[in-house]
């Protein structure tokens, strides 16, 4: 097949996810996390200002290298 897709994500690549920040969208964001992309989440509701999102991200801990490699293998 001409120009077969080459699905490769590098750290910092931007991925836009439309559908809010809950449910499937949140799961997708977590699934992409091992690749360390910059995620842009689009939704209709304003972020809850009482939630410290940066603290939540920090609390999730560093990305596991083994998980990242496993993810790369799945996407290769």
């Amino acid at each position, binding site marked *: 097949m001409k120009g*077969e*897709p080459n699905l490769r994500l590098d750290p910092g690549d931007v*991925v836009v996810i439309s559908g*809010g920040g809950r449910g499937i969208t949140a799961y997708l964001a977590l699934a992409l996390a091992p690749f360390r992309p910059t995620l842009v989440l689009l939704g209709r509701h304003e972020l809850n200002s009482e939630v410290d999102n940066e603290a939540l991200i920090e609390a999730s801990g560093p990305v596991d290298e083994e998980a990242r490699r496993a993810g790369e293998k799945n*996407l290769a």
Partner: protein
Amino acid sequence: MPRLQRLTEAKSLAGLILVMDGETPVPDMSEVPALLTGVFRSLQTLMRSPGKAFCLLIKRHLDASSPAATAAGGVEGMFLSAALEYPSVLFRCVSLDDDTGLQSALDVALDTRRYPVQISFRGQEPFTQAAKVHPIL
């Protein structure tokens, strides 16, 4: 106040994922054209990016007569056309049912060895559509 940045300013825009879920429906049919225009502009921006890699539409719990299903149909049309024009980009429209595991669906949808753009899941099993030439008379 965080600085706003346009998608066109992103150095490496790689992917676009659209989730059309019946739980967060498009409220009114009159909103569909504006939504599709927004998706088309985002798609154009992505196709201009040197790092473009994939476009994924995920559908779940959509009532066939709903505005969200109409919008999803429009997005599928865009993806099918764009897939012909940009063969190096992975385009997938994935329909899930209640019993489909999202991880296994993603594994199938993002598998570059599979070529159909449209994939429908019944449970964990993926299906696609085929067309046949058949005389009416």
